[in-house]
């Protein structure tokens, strides 16, 4: 019984915190974390609600393996209706916060309504209260965490907070916990800001928060799992050494690195911003950007990057607060802040990444929006007068300046805070926004990798890499090698990945385990932790159920098959260079097959039979 079976319901309008038992039937059907919170959200809100309305809800949720010795068992998610996309938003984070929430005795916290004034939620095991946050409003995430710990004289409190971006409703604002881990995408931080909720601070010390169904079997299963991770080349060597940045040179050489707003598929400066470069000594001060690798709670992979900037770099020269070590660039951030706009200055990328953590905004959408703005500028649509400075592709100074303005919500930063879809639409070129469902692509070109293109188009939370990582088969050969340009077998592989990913997320572990773990490795841990019979077949059915529930929410919110699409650039403009030269997306070939495999109509709607099979 790896659930705490307790839900904390916080009514921000009334200022009340109440406890209710977890719906165990739903836990059996949706497992936990992403799936379970989605079930609660879908059952409690109108899909057509304005994301910033008090009627939208915001759910922090852990999984049955969160706060356990299962490797990577520290994940929590934030689920809400997202303001960037208008679709279901579910953003997953690591660090230590999620485990602390569960040790305090909570599977999930549901926030409803909006507070009349800024508050933060303070949880001390079973005790929860809303505390005035007037003194924290306007502060960064970093200042907020430090102030809360000092104020309560407890350095062991874990904090998840929004920065100024969330307060200013930047549509891709993140919720940042433990200073540099983030529920990063889809603007969950902006919803938190709209509710006047500055932070959630937790201290969890209960030994009876939850019980394992079969402790001895669980121990054995987690030990076996850790051995598999250690022995695997990706999780045992590549990720600890280079982090996700192990991919930068690989993806570039494959001609799948979107560059300058997807005009190009290879970046001449890729090496300068790569994982390898983070290890190299800087000519300026003789030190490497990377200080060490760091783990999230319970993680035996430890892919996290801890970086220290060159204190002499122009961006931080007179700003000692950025001279210490902090969360460095992961692959997606390095791509977005760098290749997506042609910037190859690793130190500048690190600084912008620090700002994203400090004030809580998604570096992927931000960086991609910079790329879009630079293209509009080069076309002459966006002028120096409007922006306040020159904005050509490759301008390090401009990227840094835009990050600062977006963090503070000043000047052109206000427009940047809308994301590329609204930016490009405002200037008459919506086709230049590299998005699906208004959310920006991450670091893999959807033309160069056909399966990733399909993954983006069909993703329930808009373009992202974390819901069906077709890079695994198309680049890494996991579990089988698939040629990037092939379409055969891709819809079936994607469906399997999407369903499996939903299971992994909902268990409360990290997706990166699946470079090494198969379903059986995960199944044995869930089986030992949770009551009931959790066969592999049942888990995949749970994953499929979750995927369809998210889909149903989006359909009810007004999305249609027309939104399962890619920008014209990926459909019509061939890749210019590299091994995938000449490629355009073959989405039209793959999508009908995908719908069919999903048991959906040609309009992308689950059939009555599918609905009844899944019980959605």
């Amino acid at each position, binding site marked *: 019984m790896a659930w705490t079976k307790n839900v904390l319901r916080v009514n921000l309008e009334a200022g009340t915190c109440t406890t209710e038992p977890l719906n165990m039937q739903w836990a059996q059907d949706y497992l936990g974390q992403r799936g379970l919170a989605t079930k609660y959200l879908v059952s409690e809100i109108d899909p057509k609600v304005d994301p910033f309305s008090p009627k939208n809800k915001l759910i922090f949720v852990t999984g049955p393996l969160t*706060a*356990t*010795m299962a*490797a990577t068992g520290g994940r929590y998610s934030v689920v809400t209706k997202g303001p960037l996309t208008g679709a279901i938003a579910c953003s997953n984070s690591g660090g*230590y916060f999620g*485990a602390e929430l569960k*040790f305090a005795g909570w599977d999930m916290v549901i926030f409803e309504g909006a507070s009349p004034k800024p508050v933060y939620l303070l949880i001390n095991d079973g005790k929860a209260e809303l505390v005035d946050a007037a003194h924290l409003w306007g502060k960064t995430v970093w200042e907020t965490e430090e102030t809360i710990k000092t104020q309560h004289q407890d350095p*062991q409190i874990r904090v998840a907070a929004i920065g100024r971006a969330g307060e200013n409703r930047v549509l891709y604002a993140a919720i940042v916990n433990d*200073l540099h881990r983030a529920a990063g995408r889809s603007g969950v931080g902006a919803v938190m800001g709209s509710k006047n909720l500055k932070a959630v601070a937790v*201290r*969890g*010390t*209960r*030994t*009876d*928060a939850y019980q394992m169904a079969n*402790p001895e079997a669980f*121990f054995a299963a987690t030990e076996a799992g*850790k051995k598999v991770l*250690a022995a695997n080349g990706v999780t045992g060597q590549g990720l*600890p050494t280079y982090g996700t940045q192990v991919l930068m040179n690989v993806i570039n050489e494959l001609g799948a690195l979107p560059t300058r707003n997807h005009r190009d598929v290879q970046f001449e400066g890729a090496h300068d911003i790569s994982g390898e470069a983070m290890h190299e000594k800087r000519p300026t001060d003789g030190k490497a950007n990377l*200080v*060490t*690798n*760091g*783990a*999230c*709670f*319970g*993680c*035996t992979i*430890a892919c*996290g990057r*801890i*970086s*220290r900037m060159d204190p002499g770099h122009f961006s931080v020269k007179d700003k000692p607060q950025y001279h*210490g*070590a*902090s969360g460095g660039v992961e692959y997606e951030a390095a791509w977005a802040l760098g290749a997506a706009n042609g910037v190859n200055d690793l130190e500048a990328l690190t600084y912008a990444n620090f700002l994203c953590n400090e004030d809580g905004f998604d570096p992927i959408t931000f960086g991609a929006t910079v790329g879009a703005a630079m293209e509009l500028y080069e076309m002459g649509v966006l002028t120096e007068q409007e922006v306040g400075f020159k904005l050509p592709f490759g301008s390090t100074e401009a990227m840094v300046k835009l990050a600062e303005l977006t963090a503070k919500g000043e000047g052109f930063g206000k427009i940047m805070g809308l994301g590329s879809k609204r930016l490009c639409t405002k200037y008459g070129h919506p086709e230049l926004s590299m998005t699906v469902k208004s959310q920006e692509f991450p670091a893999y070109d959807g033309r160069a990798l056909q399966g990733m293109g399909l993954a983006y188009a069909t993703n329930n939370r808009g373009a992202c890499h974390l819901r069906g990582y077709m890079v695994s088969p198309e680049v890494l050969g996991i579990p089988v090698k698939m040629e990037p340009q092939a379409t055969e077998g891709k819809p079936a592989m994607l469906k399997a990945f999407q369903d499996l990913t939903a299971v992994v997320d909902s268990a409360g572990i990290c997706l990166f385990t699946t470079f090494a773990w198969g379903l059986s490795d995960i199944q044995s841990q869930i089986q030992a932790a949770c009551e009931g019979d959790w066969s592999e077949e049942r888990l995949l059915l749970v994953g499929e159920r979750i995927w369809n529930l998210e889909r149903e929410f989006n359909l009810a919110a007004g999305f249609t098959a027309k939104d399962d699409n890619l920008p014209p650039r990926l459909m019509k403009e061939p890749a210019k260079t590299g091994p995938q030269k000449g490629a355009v997306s073959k989405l039209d070939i793959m999508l009908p097959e995908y719908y069919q495999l999903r048991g959906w109509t040609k309009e992308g709607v689950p059939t009555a039979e599918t609905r009844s099979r899944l019980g959605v």
Partner: protein
Amino acid sequence: MQKSLHIDPNKCTGCLQCEMACSWENHRSFTIAKSRIKVFTFHHEGRFVPYTCTQCDEAWCMTACPVDAIRLDPVTGAKIVLEPTCVGCKVCTIACPFGTINYVASSGKVQKCDLCGGEPACAKACPTGAITYVDADWTGLGKMRQWAGKTDTNPATV
């Protein structure tokens, strides 16, 4: 051979597997708040440092205890708290120069590392080798070897 816990902070990633293992061993729960080993994060230095009792030979905690509730395990060398005898006076927590013996409010007793009877769960759980259980007389062996490897054994040339 007497063994001792050996900590190499450079290898620590802050995953807290050791804290969960410790809590599980002693409380049958993964609750890190109950762990006797703590990993400290020095965020702005990019350092993670596991820290626990080093089992002093002349243990201040043992000497200070007025009821003889802290005893030496002759096999492992660990200083062990006898819970039934401990009265929760906390004098040991004041005496210990390192802070590695602490009061547990829920039990009314103190707790400290007891080396798990010679099979420390933290060392077993550590995925990076930051915490090992090695020959007490040779905790420096790894570092010696590292430096030995750097010694220039080529004859000097004129």
